[in-house]
């Protein structure tokens, strides 16, 4: 376990406020990965990705679940609470403002198209994140097979998240456990 330096709560708030404010169309994990793992190095990519798998099988939006997982890892209960509140502050205010102005907003020519473009850009960020982490995860045939199988089952055949993770997850973990035992024997 790497010793983590204490990340200030104000930094957690700032980062997640910003992420929440610009989370259009659900593709926000791309931004989270870039900010938390790549730029700030608050956690390793394995800690992040296993957190993704862990929190996605639980109820709630992936974005807020990731915020809670990351906040908790960094600063425990206060970190998780701050991250969740930060993530919701901007969108909460934005949706109230939008409720006042929506007839005008939706009537603006091109407004919905601009929002679609914003969502598309967010999905592009997520695609790049997925490809980057795929390259890091793909260290051997087994992880590649597991990754591909998960992708096909959920992305193409639309099998529910919960059954997929409950079947593939244990297989993958059992394999990792066996491999770590083999590594221990070598040492």
């Amino acid at each position: 376990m790497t010793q983590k330096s204490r990340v200030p709560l104000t930094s957690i708030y700032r980062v997640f406020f910003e992420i929440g404010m610009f989370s259009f169309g659900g593709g926000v994990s791309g931004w989270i990965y870039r900010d938390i793992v790549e730029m700030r190095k608050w956690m390793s990519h394995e800690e992040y990705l296993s957190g993704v798998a862990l929190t996605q099988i639980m109820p709630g939006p992936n974005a807020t679940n990731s915020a809670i997982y990351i906040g908790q890892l960094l600063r425990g209960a206060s970190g998780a609470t701050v991250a969740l509140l930060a993530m919701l502050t901007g969108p909460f205010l934005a949706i109230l403002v939008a409720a006042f102005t929506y007839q005008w907003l939706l009537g603006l020519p091109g407004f919905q198209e601009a929002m679609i473009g914003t969502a598309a850009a967010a999905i592009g960020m997520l695609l790049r994140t997925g490809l980057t982490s795929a390259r890091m995860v793909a260290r051997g045939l087994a992880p590649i097979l597991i990754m591909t199988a998960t992708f096909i089952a959920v992305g193409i055949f639309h099998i529910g998240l919960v059954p997929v993770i409950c079947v593939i997850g244990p297989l993958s973990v059992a394999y990792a456990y066996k491999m770590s035992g083999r590594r221990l024997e070598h040492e």
Partner: protein
Amino acid sequence: MNELLRLVIVLAPLSLAAFGGAASIYAPLQHQAVDVEHWVTAREFVDLFAISRVTPGPGSLLGALFGWKIAGFLGALVATLALYVPSSVVVFAVGTVWNRHRGKRWHSALETGLAPVGCGLLLAGVLTLASSLFDHPISIPVILCVAAAMAFWPKVHPFIFLLIGGLVCYLAFLCGL
């Protein structure tokens, strides 16, 4: 007061049922808000849904708008808490157990083993989200270009890419594409 309590009674269980995000609770949310509680009409529901799609944040924040309709700011606040606190507590509880065992062999195996699953889920999410935009063909090149641009310039602030994406689609609309 009574209305606020109704909000919590209806929304809190949906919070715990929202597996995989808002998509899984739109149907029961619509049924409850329109048919059972009469918070909004069917037509209003569609409008509110459209708002929630063009504002940032999780799609289920739509529920805050019902709170707003029936009890103003306080209603919106109560609805938001009812929607996110229950699921967040579950995630937090599991996370606590998860972090307590950090460093053990089975924990490392879980982390190593779940990483490729999480990665496959990320990529599947890309496909699902992208397919919701397939009726706007311009969005496909935007997705691919942003992905490539981010790989080339990883230090550029994501907001710039979002802005460019929005602008490109707006201009395409102006040009009649």
